[in-house]
Every structure is written in structure tokens, then in C-alpha cells.
């Protein structure tokens, strides 16, 4: 019924002038054009990355360490492992602190301290990664007297905490209050309620936050420049300079050698596959889980 009323009403409205109709169409066209212009680099980057990356990958890339300047071949095996070590250290430090801070904000943080922490986390999120690198240099490298995987891990952990804590808080707040009350009513202490009921219910959302933070720092180069520093050889010790995939890509990209450029592309493809897989996993988890709005 309402439709007929609307149609009846429209006939009495004066027709829209040509100028206004043209403007409308032109602006629609402009908006579509902006989408095309924005998506063009995306397509260009991924296309070129696949084109150069797939062609450059070979078995040696995944199994060998870099060859000296001038020699062909070699790979980034040590950088791939180094990245895993550094990211492992970062997660080991960053995840507990991030989740803990998130629990504090959601469960105990309805006060001024909570507000201050929330604001600080948002500020930390915006601090340039290179500045975080300086601080990690000052507190770890200067103390140890040499570059190390640990310093790189600390720098990345500092970058992970704000993202993890804020998403954890958001996800815990989505858990219905009645669940907490039910557990409390059964005589379960508050800490058990929080860990086994609230956090458990929000698991998929919390993991989403962790993966987002992980994807964000996985490609970070700037904070590793003077913390992990890079290494041409194998190193599995946390207190020694360590190669990392993004660092190796940076060094090779700036080099004048074609063979190193080729490996930089292969390294980039490996890195982007790692990150996109993490993000796709997040999207999948979010779609399946009942919580999560990321």
C-alpha cells in the first residue's frame, strides 16, 4: 500500500532540472573513478608481486643462506627462521601483557586508571615504529652491548600490546553480564569466572585481535634495523644479531644486483602470503564465531 502512495506523491513533484541530474551522474562517475584509481595500485602490487615472486622462488631460496656479494644463488632460509624466532619472542612477551591489560580494562577498568590506560594504548598505537626501535635499542641493545633477536622481539612486542589489549577489552565486554553472574552465583571465584567463563566465551574474538597484531608487526622493518640488525649466517640464539625477512628484503631491494632483486621479490611474496593467511584466518574465525566485529 505505501508504494502506491509514494508513486502518487511523486507525480506532483516538479521534475528535477537537467543541471542537477547531470551533476548527480557526474558525481557518481567521479566516485566510481576514485574506486578504480585506488584499486589500480592494489592490483598492480599484487600482480607484480606474484609475477616476480613466483618466478623467483626455488628450492634454494628456502634452504640456503645468502651467498657473498657477486655470487649467484643462495636463499633466505636463515631470514625466514630468524623472523619466526623474533615474532615468537614478540608474541611470547606481547600476548600475555596485551590480554592481561585487556582483562584489566574490561573487568576492573571502569575508573580513572582504566581511562588513562585506554588513552595510553591508543597513543602507543600511533607512535611511529622507528621510534619504538630507538627505545628497544636503548633498553636492550645498549644493555646487552650488541644487537639481538631479543631486542627485535621486544620492539615488536611493544607494538603488539595496544592492539591486543584494546580488542581483548572490546571482546570481553561483548560477553553477556548474565554469564558472569551465573558463574559467580555458583560460587566460582572471580578469577576463575574471568578466565574459564568470560575469556573462554570471547576466545575467538581475542584470537582475532592477536592475529591482527601479529599481521601488523610481521612485516615491520623499521624497528628491526637497529635491534635485530640482520645476519648473513644462521643464528638461533636470542642474544645474537638475527636475520629477518623484512630486513633482508630491504637490504636486497637497495642493492645493485639482479639476483638479489629476484630474491627480494621472492621474500616479499613469502611475507605477504604469511600476512594474508593470518588475515584470512581472522576473517574465517570471525565469520564462524559468535563474537567479533573486527
Amino acid at each position, binding site marked *: 500500500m505505501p508504494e502506491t502512495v509514494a508513486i502518487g506523491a511523486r507525480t506532483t513533484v516538479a521534475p528535477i532540472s537537467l543541471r542537477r541530474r547531470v551533476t548527480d551522474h557526474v558525481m557518481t562517475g567521479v566516485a566510481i573513478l576514485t574506486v578504480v584509481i585506488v584499486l589500480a595500485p592494489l592490483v598492480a602490487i599484487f600482480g607484480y608481486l606474484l609475477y616476480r615472486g613466483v618466478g623467483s622462488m626455488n628450492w634454494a631460496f628456502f634452504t640456503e643462506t645468502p651467498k657473498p656479494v657477486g655470487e649467484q644463488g643462495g636463499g633466505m632460509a636463515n631470514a625466514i627462521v630468524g623472523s619466526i624466532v623474533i615474532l615468537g619472542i614478540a608474541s611470547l612477551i606481547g600476548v600475555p601483557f596485551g590480554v592481561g591489560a585487556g582483562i584489566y580494562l574490561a573487568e576492573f577498568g571502569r575508573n580513572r586508571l582504566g581511562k588513562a590506560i585506554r588513552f595510553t594504548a591508543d597513543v602507543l598505537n600511533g607512535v611511529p615504529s622507528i621510534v619504538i626501535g630507538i627505545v628497544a635499542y636503548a633498553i636492550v641493545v645498549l644493555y646487552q652491548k650488541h644487537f639481538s633477536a631479543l631486542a627485535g622481539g621486544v620492539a615488536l612486542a611493544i607494538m603488539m600490546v595496544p592492539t591486543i589489549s584494546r580488542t581483548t577489552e572490546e571482546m570481553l565486554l561483548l560477553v553477556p553480564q548474565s554469564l558472569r553472574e551465573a558463574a559467580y552465583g555458583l560460587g566460582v571465584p572471580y578469577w576463575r569466572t574471568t578466565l574459564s567463563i568470560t575469556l573462554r566465551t570471547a576466545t575467538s574474538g581475542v584470537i582475532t585481535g592477536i592475529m591482527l597484531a601479529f599481521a601488523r608487526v610481521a612485516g*615491520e622493518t623499521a624497528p628491526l634495523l637497529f635491534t635485530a640488525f640482520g645476519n648473513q649466517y644462521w643464528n638461533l640464539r636470542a642474544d645474537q644479531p638475527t636475520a629477518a625477512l623484512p630486513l633482508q628484503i630491504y637490504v636486497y631491494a637497495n642493492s645493485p644486483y639482479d639476483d638479489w632483486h629476484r630474491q627480494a621479490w621472492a621474500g616479499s611474496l613469502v611475507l605477504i602470503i604469511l600476512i594474508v593467511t593470518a588475515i584470512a584466518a581472522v576473517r574465517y574465525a570471525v565469520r564462524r564465531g559468535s563474537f567479533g566485529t573486527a
Partner: protein
Amino acid sequence: MPGPQPVEQAKVTAVPAPPAPLLRTSSGEIPDRVFKSAMTACGLAVLAVLGLIIYELVQRSGLSWHAFGFKFFAASEWDPVNEHFGALPFIFGTLVSSLLALLIAVPLAVGVAVFTTEMCPKVFRGPLSFFVELLAAIPSVIYGLWAIFVLVPILSRYIQPFLQKTLGWTHLFDGPPFGYSMLAAGVILAIMIIPIISSITREVLMVVPQHQREAVLALGATRWEMIRIGVLRNARAGIVGGIILGLGRALGETMAVTMVIGNRPEIAKSLFAPGYTMASVLANEFSEATGDVYLSALVEIGLALFFVTVVVNALAQLLVWTVTRGQPARGSA
């Protein structure tokens, strides 16, 4: 914890409290307290980290601050050998490259946001915003790699000669079209900040109430007029917030810029000339800095960068909050 009064009253009126739960709570009290303090410690760690950042930056830049004072930010000489340090070329480079990036990115990002929220068929909405946000997931160093091998050649072969021919009279595009330049830095930064600005703008546009749109349409507006009058005008503050958040990101961006800007501490009028930014000088020189004053001068640049980005980000958060009413904007995922 409920206030003390109701508890008192309940105790007076009700039958004596059953002993079992009381026992349970008293045994659970210590673990509860430990748990709360552990979580509080994690929260305090966030504050401590920020405190540590400020402390380290201030303390380690002291030497340079004592040596040069405010002149550090006004002098344009950067001579590590003779230990004369002035940060002006880097400040200039950071500002110009970021503003150039905004100039390119803002119209595009707002256009994309308007298209996805107001014009796009519902089916494409999800995939489109996913693709735009995928741009945000690409690491800076890969942008740099792509820029070296694709963007810079395109700029030097096609775009720069074209700009020189058409806009040469402005003298903004003087000099040889070498590729590695302030212009290249601005373009790659623009590509990198578009997803941030457009995702915040989209969020802000989505919270504009539907009846605003309906009201404007009911007055006989076309779709564009509805967007202009009913949507964009209401979302202005939030869009500006998104733009400033993008600016904050551009100011601190390091790798991609370092790889294409040319890294020469000079203040040139031409956008074709190489430049240097605060973040790039840190990336290039920090691990090789010899001498305490040199290192201290670099840390002072870091401190300045930190201070500026914090102010810019706080301002942006405030503006976005006024529109979305306190829901945090997720700009930097």
C-alpha cells in the same frame, strides 16, 4: 563491589547468612586479589612503556639539546663529521611529503568511502572494503620494493615529463626527471594512507542516521545532493579526524619513503628534487652513528617525531570520537 549500606541492611533483615558460601569466598579471596593485581600490573605495563619511551628519548637527546637548543630545529646544516646538526631539512621533508600525500589521498579516499556506503550495490560492499583494507596489510618494505621497480620508473618516464610540460611554469617541477624524489615519496605515502582515511570515513558515514538521508531525499534532492547535504555535512568532523589520523601515519612512515625519496638533506622548492625525512634519517644513520652528539641528535629527531605524531593522533581521536560517540576508531590495523 556493591556499596556498604545495602549489605548492612540485608544482614539486619535477612536470616543469618548461610555458612557455606561465606567459607567459599574467604578461600577465594586471596587468589582473587592476586588475579586482580596481576591484571592491574599488565595494565600498568602499558603506562610504563609509554613512560619509558618518553624517558629514554628525553634523556638520550639531552646532549644534543644542550649543544644546540632550539636552533636544532631551525638550522639546516647536517654535518656529522664536524658535528653540526640541524633538523630543518628533515622536518621540511617530512611535512612536504606528508602534505603531498594528503593532497593526493584525501579526495580518493573520501570518494571510495562515499561510493561504498552510499552508491555501491550491497553485494559489492563487503569485498570492496576488504580489498581497500588489504592495501593496509601490505608491509611498508614491500611498498618500497614495488615503488623502486615500478612506481619510480613510471614517474620518471611518463608522469614527470608530463608535469614538467604542463605545470613547469610553477617551478614546482624543475630539475631532471630522475624518479627518486619528494614526489615519489608523496605518491607512495598516498597509496599507503588511503585505506586508513577511507575506512574511518566509511565508519563515520555509516553512523550518520538514516533519517537524515530520508529527510533530504523527501525534499526532492538527487542522490548526490543527499550525500552532500545530508551525509557529508554531518560527518565533517569525523572525516577531518580520519584525515588527521592518516597524516599521523604518513609522518611516521619509514621504509617505503626511505627507499624512494633520495635521502639528501636539502631544502628544495622542486618536488622532483630528492629530500630526506625525519624517519628516514633515523633508519639510515642510527645504527652507524659514531659519536655521542651524533647519536643524541638522532634521538632528538626521534623525540620530535614522537611528540608530533602523539599530538596529531590525539587530535584525530578526539575528532572521530565527537562523531562516533566514543566507539574507538580502528585506524591502524
